[in-house]
């Protein structure tokens, strides 16, 4: 700061603005993703499993599209700190109700662990986050079918989940 001839006041004003700016940027990306997911899922009436597949596909597409912001999440996280964890938890909570609706399709749905929706949503974002950490965001579309299958399998069983996940990926054009 001495060299830049900047006063403490000015420095911390800009520093705090940078953090806030980054958080605002990320929050906007999150809100846009939520909106897009809602649009896609509600675009036409669908069975639950298809809703899940569409939601996950949209989330991954938004991450790939917004890869600069997504990558910045990894790089800038040290700057933002605990606020990032809050956003992460919020993103997980956003998926929980959609997943939980799957319990009604399973006669033993009520026996599933109470935490399963959080665990599954956490696993979805973990998969995405890890690709970001190693700089392989373009691989997200590849892992989508498997991620979808894991979620669906919990509520519908192995065979049905695999069938639906494959159906979904067959319908989508291959990633560019």
């Amino acid at each position: 700061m001495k060299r830049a001839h900047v006063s403490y006041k000015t420095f911390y004003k800009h520093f705090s603005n940078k953090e806030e700016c980054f958080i605002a940027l990320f929050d906007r990306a999150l809100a846009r993703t939520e909106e897009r997911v809602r649009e896609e899922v509600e675009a036409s009436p669908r069975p639950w499993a298809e809703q899940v597949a569409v939601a996950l596909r949209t989330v991954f597409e938004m991450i790939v599209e917004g890869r600069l912001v997504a990558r910045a999440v990894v790089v800038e996280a040290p700057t933002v700190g605990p606020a990032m964890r809050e956003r992460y938890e919020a993103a997980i909570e956003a998926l929980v109700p959609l997943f939980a609706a799957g319990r009604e399709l399973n006669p033993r749905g009520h026996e599933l662990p109470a935490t399963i929706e959080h665990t599954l949503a956490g696993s979805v974002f973990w998969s995405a986050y890890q690709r970001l950490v190693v700089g392989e965001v373009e691989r997200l579309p590849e892992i989508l079918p498997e991620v979808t299958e894991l979620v669906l399998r919990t509520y519908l069983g192995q065979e049905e989940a695999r069938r639906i996940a494959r159906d979904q990926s067959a319908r989508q054009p291959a990633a560019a």
Partner: protein
Amino acid sequence: MADEPLTRADVPAQLGPLPGGHHGLSREQILESQRERLLAAMAREVAVHGYRATTITGLVKVAAVSTRDFYEHFESKEECFLAAFEAIRDYVEGLVVEAAVEQPDWAREVIAAVRAALAFFAAEPDIARLCLVEPVSATPRIAVRFREAVLACIPALSRGRGEMEDGDLLPSSTEDSLIGGIVSLVTRSIAADETETLPALLPDLVDFILTPYLGTETAARIAAQAAAG
């Protein structure tokens, strides 16, 4: 108190033995003692302030060493954090292997391993935070090291494929996804300062882990047994 120097009792055994007294210690022993106090200081400071706000000044004060001493052991704050992380990782691995070795089958090994890990992190909230919560938002290098440590659990999980018919047909990312779910659930409790609830997660975690390999019914049954046991 957070910023007071550590006493011998404060250094968790997992970060290395602390020799008694300074009389007649060799230089090697003194250095080892300093290093362990610095690692313990890192766990303490990071738990209180978070990685970013933790400073070398703060660390050396808590560890009761000089700044020069710090730089004899570590090049940077990041290096010190990584050393603490690796020391704990080794320790937990030992705990988990020891718990698993006496079990009659893979599913029971999983239960014993998860139970041992949860008990450890419940008993050591500062260490739990350093290991599981802080890494993803510390530095990119630390985040990658965290990923590597977590992925090292994959072989133990993929043995579950041997327990089922057509284990090779399970998606290749199954283990990675399982780990993601486990880390997510566990870190939620730690981040919320509710480490005492960690052991209660055992049945849910066991159910989650075993389901892809053993099917929902068997997994649920074994998980219920784990809860009772």
